[in-house]
C-alpha cells in the first residue's frame, strides 16, 4: 500500500458523510423518487460507497434500494500493460438491471476509462433504462467523453498528484488524501 | 616407419619414464632415453596408458550411416584414446553372417584409426529364435569371438544355453543384454520414485537382475563363460559377486554414464538421458563404482550409441535410446573412479584396456607398456578440466548427456601400432 506521509486530507470523515447525504438527495430528486434505482459500486471502494449511499437513500425514501457491485477488471483497456489482476465480485441484485436506472458508484473519477469499462460490462449484463454516475471525487483529466451526474467534491489536481480515498470498511478510517506522486523506483 | 619418443610420461600413473616407439612396437621404456632420430612428444605430467579397448560400441554401419559410420566411429574412438572397438551386431542388415562382419572389419582396417572387431549376432536377425552361424563368423576374416544380440536380450533360456555351449568350441563368449522383455514392455525409464512421478513406464531392476541370475546359472551348468553387458543395478552387482564367488566364469561391464548419471535427470524429460538400460538411482551408481573398483565388474565399456538429432529432439516416448560415449569415457571414469580415489591409473588400464582385450581376445591390444609390445598407447592430460562441447566431436552424432558439463582429463595422443591417430587432441 502507498504511504501517505506527505499527503494532506482534502475531505475528512464528516465531509464524506455529508456529501453522500447530499448525493442521495440529488438522486431522489433527479430520479423522481428513485423507485427504480439500482446502485452498482465499482470495486473496491466504490462498493462501500454504494452501500453507504443505499443506506442513505433508504432513509430518505423509506424503501429498500437494490445495491450491488460491478467488477470491471476484465473489461479494462490496459490489461496488457500489467500482470492480470485478481478479480473482484460482480453482484447484480436479484431483480437485475433491465429497465432500471443504474447508478454507478466509484470513489475517484479520473481518466474515465474505468467508467467506459463499466459501461461495457453493464452491456453484457442487461439493458438499463438509463445509467448515471456518482463519484466521491472528480479530479479532472478526462481522457474520454464521460462526466459524472453526482459529484461529492470537484478537486482540481495536477497529473503529478495522487488522490487516495480511504474508507473505514477497507482502510480503518474515512478520508480523502491529496499527495505528490512517488517517483518511479 | 619412424621413431617417436614419449618423454617423461607417468606410465600407468607411475613414475615418469620415457617410452620409445620404433615402427609399430615399443622399443624401450626407461629414463633418459635418447631422442636421436625420433620425434619427441613432451609428456611431463601426463599419464600414458595402453590403448583403450571398448568391448561395446555401435558403429551403425551398415544401415544407419546417418548416425555413424565405421570411419566416423573409429575417429571418435581414436579421439577418446581407443585403439580397438568391438562393433555391435545390431546394424541393418544385422551382423549375423560372415559377410556382414567381414565388411565391417574390412572398413575398420581401411580407415586405420582403430581396430574394429565385429561382434556377431547370437541369433538370426536378433530375433532370439534361431542361432546365427556363429562358427562361420568366427572363421571369417573378422575372426569374431564375441557374440551378442545387444539391444535385445537372448531371452529364451534354451537358445541362451545352446549359444553358451556352442561358442565353447572356439573360445567365444556370449555378451548378454540382460533385459527380461515382458517386464520391460512399454518401459521408458528406471522404475522407482521418479518414474512414478513422471508417469513414464517403469523399467524394473529385476528385469535385468533376473536374466543375469539365470545366465550365470546357465554358464555354470554348461561350463561356459558369459559376459554381461552394461550392468546397471546394485542387485546385478550382488548377483555377479555371488557368481564369481562360486567360481562361475562371468565377466561384466559398466558404462561410463551408469557410473555418473541418475534417473533424477529424467525430470527434464530431455531424451538425451534416455538410454538402455536406463539411468538408475544414486544407490545403484555408488554400488557400480564400488564393484568396478573391487573387480566384481571387470571393465568399462561405452555402449557408444549414436543417434541423429531428430531422434532426440522430440518428446521422450518417441526418442531413441542411447548416448554417444567414446569421446568422453575416459573423462567420466577419471571423474567417478580416479578423482574419487576408487581406482588408480593402473586400475583404469586394467578396466579399460587389459581386461576388455582379454575378454574379447583382441590380440595385440591390452598389452603392458614394455619393450617388444605393440605400440598401442594413449596419452592423457589428467590435469585438464573443461566443459564438454559436442560440436567438437569426431562422432557423426551429438547425443551426449554431458553437453556443457565440466569433466576432467583429455586424451592428447593415441597411437595405433606406432602410428599416431591423435596428436595434441587432433585426429591425424
Amino acid at each position: 500500500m502507498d504511504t501517505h506521509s506527505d499527503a494532506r486530507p482534502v475531505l475528512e470523515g464528516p465531509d464524506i458523510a455529508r456529501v453522500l447525504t447530499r448525493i442521495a438527495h440529488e438522486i431522489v430528486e433527479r430520479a423522481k423518487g428513485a423507485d427504480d434505482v439500482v446502485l452498482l459500486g465499482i470495486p473496491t471502494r466504490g462498493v462501500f460507497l454504494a452501500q453507504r449511499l443505499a443506506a442513505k437513500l433508504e432513509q430518505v425514501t423509506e424503501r429498500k434500494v437494490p445495491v450491488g457491485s460491478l467488477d470491471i477488471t476484465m473489461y479494462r483497456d490496459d490489461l496488457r500493460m500489467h500482470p492480470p489482476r485478481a478479480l473482484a465480485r460482480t453482484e447484480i441484485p436479484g431483480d437485475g438491471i433491465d429497465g432500471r436506472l443504474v447508478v454507478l458508484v466509484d470513489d475517484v473519477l479520473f481518466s474515465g476509462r474505468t467508467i467506459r469499462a463499466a459501461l461495457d460490462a453493464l452491456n453484457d449484463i442487461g439493458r438499463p433504462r438509463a445509467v448515471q454516475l456518482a463519484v466521491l471525487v472528480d479530479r479532472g483529466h478526462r481522457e474520454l467523453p464521460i462526466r459524472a451526474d453526482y459529484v461529492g467534491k470537484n478537486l482540481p489536481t495536477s497529473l503529478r498528484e495522487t488522490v487516495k480515498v480511504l474508507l473505514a470498511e477497507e482502510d480503518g478510517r474515512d478520508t480523502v488524501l491529496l499527495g505528490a506522486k512517488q517517483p518511479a523506483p | 616407419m619412424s621413431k617417436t619418443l614419449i618423454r617423461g610420461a607417468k606410465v600407468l600413473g607411475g613414475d615418469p619414464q620415457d617410452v620409445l616407439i620404433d615402427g609399430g612396437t615399443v622399443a624401450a621404456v626407461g629414463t633418459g632415453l635418447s631422442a636421436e632420430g625420433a620425434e619427441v612428444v613432451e609428456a611431463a605430467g601426463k599419464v600414458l596408458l595402453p590403448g583403450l579397448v571398448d568391448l561395446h560400441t555401435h558403429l551403425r554401419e551398415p544401415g544407419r550411416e546417418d548416425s555413424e559410420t565405421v570411419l566416423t566411429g573409429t575417429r571418435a574412438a581414436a579421439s577418446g584414446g581407443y585403439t580397438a572397438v568391438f562393433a555391435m551386431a545390431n546394424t541393418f542388415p544385422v551382423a549375423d553372417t560372415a559377410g556382414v562382419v567381414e565388411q565391417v572389419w574390412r572398413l575398420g582396417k581401411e580407415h586405420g584409426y582403430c581396430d574394429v572387431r565385429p561382434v556377431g549376432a547370437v541369433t538370426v536377425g536378433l530375433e532370439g529364435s534361431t542361432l546365427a552361424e556363429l562358427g562361420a563368423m568366427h572363421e571369417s576374416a573378422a575372426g569374431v569371438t564375441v557374440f551378442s544380440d545387444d539391444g535385445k536380450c537372448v531371452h529364451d533360456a534354451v537358445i541362451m544355453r545352446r549359444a553358451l555351449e556352442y561358442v565353447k568350441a572356439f573360445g567365444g563368449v556370449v555378451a548378454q543384454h540382460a533385459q527380461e522383455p515382458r517386464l520391460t514392455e512399454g518401459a521408458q525409464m528406471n522404475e522407482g520414485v521418479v518414474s512414478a512421478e513422471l508417469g513414464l513406464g517403469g523399467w524394473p531392476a529385476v528385469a535385468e537382475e533376473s536374466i543375469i541370475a539365470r545366465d550365470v546359472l546357465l554358464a555354470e551348468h554348461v561350463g561356459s563363460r558369459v559376459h554381461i553387458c552394461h550392468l546397471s543395478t546394485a542387485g546385478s552387482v550382488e548377483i555377479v559377486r555371488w557368481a564369481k564367488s562360486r567360481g562361475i566364469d562371468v565377466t561384466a561391464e559398466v558404462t561410463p554414464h551408469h557410473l555418473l548419471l541418475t534417473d533424477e535427470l529424467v525430470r527434464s524429460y530431455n531424451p538425451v538421458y534416455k538410454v538402455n538400460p536406463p539411468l538408475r538411482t544414486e544407490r545403484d551408481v555408488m554400488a557400480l563404482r564400488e564393484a568396478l573398483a573391487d573387480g566384481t565388474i571387470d571393465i568399462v565399456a561405452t555402449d557408444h550409441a549414436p543417434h541423429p538429432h531428430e531422434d532426440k529432439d522430440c518428446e521422450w516416448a518417441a526418442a531413441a535410446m542411447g548416448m554417444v560415449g567414446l569421446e568422453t569415457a575416459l573423462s567420466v571414469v577419471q571423474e567417478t573412479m580416479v578423482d574419487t580415489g576408487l581406482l588408480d591409473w593402473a586400475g583404469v588400464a586394467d578396466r579399460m584396456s587389459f581386461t576388455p582385450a582379454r575378454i574379447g581376445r583382441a590380440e595385440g591390444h591390452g598389452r603392458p607398456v614394455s619393450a617388444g609390445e605393440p605400440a598401442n598407447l594413449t596419452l592423457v592430460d589428467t590435469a585438464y578440466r573443461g566443459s564438454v562441447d559436442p560440436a567438437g566431436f569426431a562422432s557423426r552424432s551429438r547425443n551426449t548427456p554431458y553437453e556443457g558439463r565440466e569433466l576432467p582429463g583429455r586424451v592428447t595422443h593415441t597411437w595405433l601400432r606406432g602410428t599416431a591417430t591423435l596428436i595434441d587432441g587432433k585426429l591425424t
Partner: protein
Amino acid sequence: MQRHLISAADLTRDDAVLILDTAEEMARVADRPIKKLPTLRGRTVVNLFFEDSTRTRISFEAAEKRLSADVINFTAKGSSVSKGESLKDTAQTLEAMGVDAVVIRHGASGAPYRLATSGWIDAHVINAGDGTHQHPTQALLDAFTMRRRLVGRDTGLGQDLSGRRITLVGDVLHSRVARSNVDLLHTLGAEVTLVAPPTLLPVGVEAWPCEVSYDLDRTLPKSDAVMMLRVQRERMKAAFFPTEREYSRRYGLDGERMRRMPDHAIVMHPGPMVRGMEITAEVADSERCTVVEQVTNGVSIRMAVLYLLLGGNEPALTQAARTTEEK
C-alpha cells in the same frame, strides 16, 4: 510454474487459491445473459490435441471463447508419438501463425514439458493431459468442486482444503488425474489417501505426499470426498486384476458403500464413468455425485487459468518468468 501450466506440482498454495478464487468469479459469468468477457480479445489459442478427448477440448474451447480469444482446434489424430517430428513441427507451424498459447493434450508423458522448455516455441503452454503424467486443470476443477461443496461457495474464497480428507480410488498407476490431484490437494492442505489394488499403484508411490490403502471399506467412513478413477476394461487382460466382477466387489463404489461415507461426503469422478465397474448407477445418479458439476466447473477453472496466464503482460502466478509479449 514460469509462464506455463505443466504440472499441478508447480503451483504454490497461493497460486492455487488465486486460481480457485478467480474461477469462482468466472463461474458467475455463466449465469449472465451474455456469457462472454472481452478479456482475451486478439489473443489466439490453439487446442493441440494428439489424443482424442472431446470433453476436455470442448471445455477449453468454451473457456477460450467466453474470454473472446480466437480459437484454433488442431486434432492430430493417429499421428501421436509414432513420428517424433510431428510435435515439434506442428507446434512450430502453429507458432508461425501467431499463436499466443498452446493447450496441448498428448499421449506421451512430458510432451507439454518438452514443448515448453525445448525452445521450439515461445507461446504459453497449458497441459491438457499428458500420458500418465499430469492433468493440472482437472486437479484444479476437482479442488474447486471440493472447496465449493465442503467449504462453501463464498466462504471458500481465499481458503484452501486444510484438513479435508480426500480418497482417490482406482487405477492410480495409469492415471494423470491421480498424480495431479495428489500434488494439488497436498499443496492445498488436504489429507489424501489412495485406494487401489497393489497392481494399480506405481512402484515409488511411497514417495508421494499421501497415504496408501488397499482397503476401501476402512477408508470410506473417514473421507470427506471420494474420487473414483476410471478403470479401463483392457487392464484386466494385462492381469492387473482378475475379473471385472472381482474389481467391482473390492474397489467399486455401490450404494451400500456410499452410505458408509459421512453424510456430508461427496462422490467425484473425472469422467467418463464406467458404470458397473468402478461406480454403480445408483451412486453415479445420486445427489452426492458431483460429476456434472465437475464438468461445469471445468470451464470456470480453465477461464481462470487462461486469464491468469494470458490476461496481462505477464502471468499472474508466482515464479512466473518475466516476459513481455506486447505486439
